[in-house]
């Protein structure tokens, strides 16, 4: 990490032994990396195989590729489940942002009495096992006829993700120089002007990162979705979970379904990884 300006000069002088060591470390790193990534790569590869090729042992690395599995999965109504997941995740993320932005703003830029207490309260609600709250929630939704309802699921995801979003955003908001806010106030900016015109543009990347993490957690959530939805509002994870009945050949179709299910989040996560990393690490550290 110690990259000073002189580094290249120093590196050229490195003895052969050190350079060999460095190459060995790089090789080790890549072997481990590819090992970690292998299950994902294999899933994608299998999703293009025929069922027969997918069930061959020893595995075939060269085989004819097909799109049949994706067609089959979509024919089984997989698109509806993906759409349900999208609605629940997007809906809850939007509500989280609407609630978390003002809260994070209040906690970082306008510190109030017991700001730390409020913050720890938020964090600790995230620590509570959801199992401890699920029975009353289930019974209440059942009484109200809201089981198998996307909106009800979204509200629960809001409760699940809100603390995390506030926590992450607060650390981004705290980096806004107070002078800028004060200058805006002196210039006579009303509160909403100050928030939307001055502060939010500065923290937009942080807000995006927090929103993305909330989206990912909602998209991947299994426990609540499995219990609280059945037919109309079923999301992708519980459908995947019930996908395999253990009979016949299914590995290629399963891989196709899993590939479709993880694709949106993985691509979004890759695209935004710098912010994601910073958001997670800072949310965790600060």
């Amino acid at each position, binding site marked *: *990490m*110690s990259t*000073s300006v002189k580094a290249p000069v120093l590196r050229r002088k490195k003895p052969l032994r050190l350079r060999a060591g*460095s190459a060995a470390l*790089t090789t*080790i*790193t890549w072997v*481990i990396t590819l090992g*970690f990534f*292998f*299950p*994902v790569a294999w*899933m994608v590869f299998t999703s293009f195989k025929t069922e027969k090729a997918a069930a061959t042992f*020893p*595995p075939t690395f060269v085989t004819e590729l097909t799109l049949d599995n994706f067609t089959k999965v979509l024919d089984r109504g997989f698109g509806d489940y993906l759409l349900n997941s999208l609605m629940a995740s997007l809906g809850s993320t939007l509500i989280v942002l609407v609630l978390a932005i*003002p809260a994070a*703003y*209040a906690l970082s830029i*306008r*510190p*109030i009495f*017991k700001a730390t207490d*409020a913050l*720890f*309260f938020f964090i*600790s*609600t995230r*620590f*509570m*096992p959801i199992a*401890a*709250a*699920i029975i*009353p929630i289930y019974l*209440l939704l059942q009484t109200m006829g809201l089981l198998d309802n996307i909106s009800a699921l979204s509200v*629960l995801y*809001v*409760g699940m993700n*809100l603390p995390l979003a506030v926590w992450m955003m607060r650390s981004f908001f705290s980096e806004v120089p107070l002078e800028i806010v004060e200058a805006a106030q002196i210039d006579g900016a009303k509160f909403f002007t100050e928030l939307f015109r001055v502060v939010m543009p500065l923290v937009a990347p942080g807000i995006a990162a927090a929103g993305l993490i909330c989206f990912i957690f909602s998209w*991947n959530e*299994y*426990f609540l979705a499995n219990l609280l939805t059945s037919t109309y509002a079923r999301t992708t*994870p*519980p459908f*995947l*979970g019930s*996908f*395999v009945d253990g009979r016949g050949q299914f*590995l290629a179709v399963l891989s196709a379904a*899993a590939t479709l*299910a*993880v694709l949106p989040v993985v691509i979004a996560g*890759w695209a935004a*990884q710098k912010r994601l*990393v*910073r958001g*997670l*690490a800072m949310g*965790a*550290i600060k």
Partner: protein
Amino acid sequence: MTATLAESATPESGTPDLAPKRSRNKQKLVLSTSQRKGLRLSRALLWPALIVSIAVTQVPFLVTIFYSFQKWNLLRPGQREFAWFDNYVTVFTGGEFLSSLLATVVITGTSVVLSVVFGLILAVLLDRKFVGQGLARTLLITPFLMMPAAAALIWKWSMLDANVGMVNWGLSLIGLDAVQWNTNFPALTVIMVLTWQYTPFMMLILLAGLQSQPGEVLEAASVDGAGPVRRFFTMTLPHLRQYIELATLLGGIMLLQVFDPIAIMTRGTGGTKTLSYLLYERAFVGLEIGEAAAYGVITVLLTIIVATVALRLLFKIFSNEGTRS
């Protein structure tokens, strides 16, 4: 849960930099009109998030405590009555609790330790310039982004399957016999999947820690003749300590509630029936609301204990280091 954790956590964590702020607030009890207005605005901004949070998580937990004192099976709705601690007695004498606690400790503990260790190794390996550094990091964070349900299925049927699994194929290449992973080592299969999923998370936190280390100090040590191994153990590791502890705490809390791989891969068989899975079974298969609620309360109490002990250790170390420097 909340109140205890917040109260126990705040004093320690607040000591170094937040306590002065609070006493300053106390001195400023006489506020000007504009300050008063600002305070009211701040509270107004905070309340909506607080209320939603309380309504969705805290209120149901209070109701769970209430349910845990009731004799209540959904199959016999007419016979609901107040039963004091009967459910807790059932839980502790029923025989499933201890094995379930053991399963939780084994699965959570092993997965956390393994993913922190692998995360540390990967973070150190990634924290140097090499060909394709960015791509390697991108590939390494992918397991963390994978939907847990998809990951559990792929591992169960594609990686660890006894007949066509890639892991057994790998073993056969080096001359080892096929292993019936899911049948004979259910806890191990769950731990493998969890470790694979959480290692990237640990790696990200630890990598942030490594990159926050001032380079000049390391360079100075290197000039003074300290080798890379010595530098790592005497300087980098102590610097990383708080990051390691934080990763352990967060990982522990997340993994304590783990459910998906167990529901999908083993259905609680063979020493994988963790507390949260047992609660699910009691409530939604056995329809024993009171007993399941008691499990919920116990799970929360255990989480509080783990989190409080961990936080205390964590912040004691923080403040010690604060006074030393």
